[in-house]
């Protein structure tokens, strides 16, 4: 089984990625990178990462979230985060990235947050 499974669904022009597994150095980080690249290539620039199923992330995975954020911004899009576990919230606090990402606990609120 893959380290990270990513399921994709649409809510209007917003693409929601339901992520399940680990975002760590190697396979998990690469899976996220490839998915974001593909979506941007398809012109999908409003992306919501649902991290409810991500039980583990390391510094490489955090770096991949940052890379995804900057890649989407560069294309004039928006990337937001949904349903962080306490552990991931703690890591984003340690890295001061909670000041960078828009983070939501409700999908409805997150979808309303897009321009």
């Amino acid at each position: 089984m893959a380290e990270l499974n990513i399921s994709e669904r649409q809510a209007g022009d917003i693409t929601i990625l339901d992520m399940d597994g680990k975002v760590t150095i190697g396979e998990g980080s690469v899976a996220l990178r490839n998915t974001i690249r593909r979506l941007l290539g398809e012109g999908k620039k409003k992306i919501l990462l649902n991290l409810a199923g991500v039980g583990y992330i390391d510094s490489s995975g955090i770096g991949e979230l940052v890379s995804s954020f900057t890649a989407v911004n560069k294309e004039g899009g928006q990337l937001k985060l949904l349903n962080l576990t306490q552990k991931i919230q703690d890591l984003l606090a340690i890295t001061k990235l909670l000041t960078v990402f828009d983070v939501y606990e409700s999908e409805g609120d997150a979808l309303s947050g897009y321009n």
Partner: protein
Amino acid sequence: MIGEIKELNLPSLLESVDQAASEAENFARQNGFDDSALSAIDMAMREAVANAVKHGNKLDESKRVEIVFINLQKGLEITIRDFGKGFDVDEVPDPTNPENLLKANGRGILFMRAFMEEVEWSNHETGGTVVKMCKLR
């Protein structure tokens, strides 16, 4: 048991990160560390071994990563050595500086310091970096 030692010698593969973390968890659990400590040790261990494999040994499979766990009275001491060119930890940019927040790399050392009470880096006299970290009881 206080004084118990376990040594590992792993290849410079990303798979070694999982193996080292698993061995660290088993060693720590057997020596009485609680779930919170196990989670912290796992996190720091993964970062340290990933650094050794990727940045130290540069994924050169001919170079090994040497790991020693020691169960001390004060806590679990873990030493990780790579065979790379070494580095000066003081020259690693602070990833929490606003100018570095959007950089993709450079947070591993921050995590190691956040999850272990003691972490120090040194250059081995015959080459490579040695990181010694301790999770206190």
